[in-house]
């Protein structure tokens, strides 16, 4: 498969770009923040995105989706990233649908995938814990067999869109110690199951995340997602795929911050000339451009690998490559953007600060650059 977008994908990108610039704006994002909106996103826009088919891009037609590929999803995510759109794509489409697609039973697929594609069901993946530091296999939450079902006890954090999710996917340890790769089990539970407490977190990017407490939560045996004790490998695959999707969104946000900055360099006049004529700024702008182009290649390469059905180790390496690069590049561009905007870049009134805040959160989501480099080294055997 060539590393080039098809005409259909270019068209999809244009449609998404027009949608984002027409329906959404940074003023809307600011409004959601300033009014402390209970959802933190627009359910109306979510419905429109469902109608456009975007929520079911990688869901097969037989499961109510569109049955396209990850490169198609990539171009949509990139455009949503340009507008810093907070709609729950990462949680519901990448993590939620991803987990059901990879590990769900026929019944679970039928229950969730058409509803996700239709925009009527939100999912969240509760896997991170206070001490997990990005590693999906560090699980202290316990799952114990009780009667015909299970009892879950523990606490999850950084649960993306947890406060609005209709269902939660929870990782819990059914055997072994906190850091064992095996003995992890995934459960699909309704948010209103007794014993679940969801508390919204307020983070710098105003996007949505929550802490989830599980106090003796009783679930039936059919809540199992995949086989008992074998959720660790499934979880790693789900998180790798979601990581790759997130990098597409980060790429879009990076490009948007960069373009705003280039425009500022072309128009802001000091000493009687546009500041973009100063070589000290030109070279830094050109370096950012190079980093962004390399990031785009990594993001495309990772999405292509998913479409080609490469093995898990290759996907893991490419997820690491794309995430490390997008983390570093988004942070670099966001910090330089504030610097090059000067004083106005430090004000809440100007939009550029939103990108800096989002860059920091996205950098840490699913693991920062150092985490992914370490992981790539281990996958490479050194």
């Amino acid at each position: 498969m060539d590393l080039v977008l098809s005409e259909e994908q270019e068209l999809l990108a244009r449609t998404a770009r027009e949608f984002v610039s027409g329906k959404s704006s940074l003023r809307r994002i600011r409004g959601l923040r300033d009014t402390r909106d209970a959802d933190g996103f627009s359910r109306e826009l979510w419905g429109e995105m469902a109608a456009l088919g975007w929520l079911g891009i990688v869901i097969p037609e037989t499961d109510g989706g569109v049955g396209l590929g990850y490169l198609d999803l990539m171009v949509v995510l990139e455009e949503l990233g340009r507008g810093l759109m907070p709609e729950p794509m990462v949680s519901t489409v990448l993590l939620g649908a991803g987990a059901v697609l990879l590990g769900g039973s026929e019944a679970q697929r039928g229950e969730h995938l058409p509803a996700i594609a239709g925009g009527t069901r939100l999912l969240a993946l509760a896997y991170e814990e206070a001490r997990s530091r990005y590693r999906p296999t560090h699980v202290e939450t316990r799952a114990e067999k009780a009667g015909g079902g299970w009892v879950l006890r523990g606490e999850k954090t950084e649960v993306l869109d947890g406060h609005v999710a209709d269902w939660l996917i929870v990782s819990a340890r059914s055997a072994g110690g906190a850091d064992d790769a095996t003995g992890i089990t995934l459960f699909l539970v309704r948010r209103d199951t007794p014993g679940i407490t969801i508390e919204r977190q307020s983070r710098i990017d105003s996007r949505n995340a929550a802490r989830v407490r599980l106090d003796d939560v009783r679930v039936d045996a059919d809540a199992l997602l995949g086989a008992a004790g074998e959720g660790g490998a499934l979880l790693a695959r789900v998180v790798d795929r979601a990581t790759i999707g997130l990098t597409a969104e980060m790429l879009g946000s990076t490009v948007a911050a960069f373009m705003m900055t280039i425009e500022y360099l072309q128009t802001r006049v000091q000493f009687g000339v546009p500041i973009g004529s100063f070589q000290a700024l030109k070279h830094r702008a050109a370096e950012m451009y190079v980093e962004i182009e390399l990031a785009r290649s990594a993001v495309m390469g990772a999405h292509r690998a998913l479409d080609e059905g490469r093995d898990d180790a290759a996907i893991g390496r490419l997820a690491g490559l794309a995430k490390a690069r997008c983390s570093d590049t988004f942070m670099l561009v966001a910090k330089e953007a504030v610097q090059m905007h000067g004083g106005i870049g430090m004000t809440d009134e100007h939009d550029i600060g939103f990108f800096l805040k989002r860059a920091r959160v996205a950098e840490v989501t699913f693991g920062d650059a150092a985490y992914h480099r370490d992981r790539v080294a281990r996958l490479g055997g050194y």
Partner: protein
Amino acid sequence: MPDLDAFREEARRWLTANAPASMRTPPTTPDELCWGGKKTPYPPDVKRWLAVMAERGWTAPVWPKEYGGGGLSKQEAKVLAEEMGKLRLRPALIGFGLTMIGPLLLQEGSEELKREHLPRIVRGEVRWCQGYSEPGAGSDLASLQAKAVRDGDSFVVNGQKVWTSYADKSDWMFVLVRTDFEARKQEGITFLLMDMTSPGVSVRPILLISGSSPFCETFLSDVRVPVKNVVGKINGGWAMAKALLGHERTMIADAYKERDEDERLVNLARRYLPTQPGGGIGDALLRDAITQVTMDQAALDLTLARSRDGAKAGHKPGPETSIFKYYGTELNMRRRELMVKIAGPQGLGWEGPGFDENELTVTRDWLRSRGNSIEGGTSEIQLNIIAKRVLGLPD
């Protein structure tokens, strides 16, 4: 595609039958490869490999057959390259003839020049060098002063060129000279082909900090060059030079993309650094630096692939060649720097005893690599180009 499959089958069979066994090992230095020309003696296997490949035109696979090339389509050439890669075959011929002046002549040369020079390039009979930089014209190349004055059917050339790669081993030079001193500086330059055996040409190698002498100074004193050897128009040489710089920048990025380089880095770390109980490299900072270099290389490789695939899909190549030159050389320099750091005190040797061949190569490659961001347009010039042509930042 059945046709391509048939070609792949045929290519594999022919290559297997005709390639000498010694050509199936990776070269340890670029000097082991065949650059062609009359001045360098090559081992018998190298000469034989060149002869059979040139016979089929496969040293220049996509050039038209009428000029000695292979006449292959781009797809066929890709298949050929893939099959050579699978057999780990060395290229039969490399050099500026194939990658720079040949493609330019195909694009811009007169029929006479094409017939005279292209077949000889394909057969590796002539090695070419590039006469661009001068003592007073480095990054500001357009200010060059080598003077060519018309005298009948000839130009008489006087001046000095510097940083001429392998001028001492080359047979012909493509050279930029000033033919109009009144015009704006870019508009008085002419692109000439010059026989290095012409009276008045003298060459002196320059010793570098690495101890090698890949570059020369070339002195031109009343050298007569026929007017028919002009490529493009008289006073139209700057456009030719710019077209060529694109070729050179892509080539430099490709040249630094050596096979097995990542493995070499990890093996070096295994040799000189402690090992963790789990088998990982024990120096956390150097391990992270190694991973950064290998991952950056992977991203650059994907970008090169993206550019090639884009060209195949009909997208016009843009100033992105500046990305490759800039990033490819900076990355190579980081890699060389890292290798010396990993070797520690064993990376300090100038010559034996106490230092093995591998260690001396690491050290000298590091010293040599410091020039990567200077030659072929400095990194700063590349950044200027990106800022101006891609980002549209004002002068």
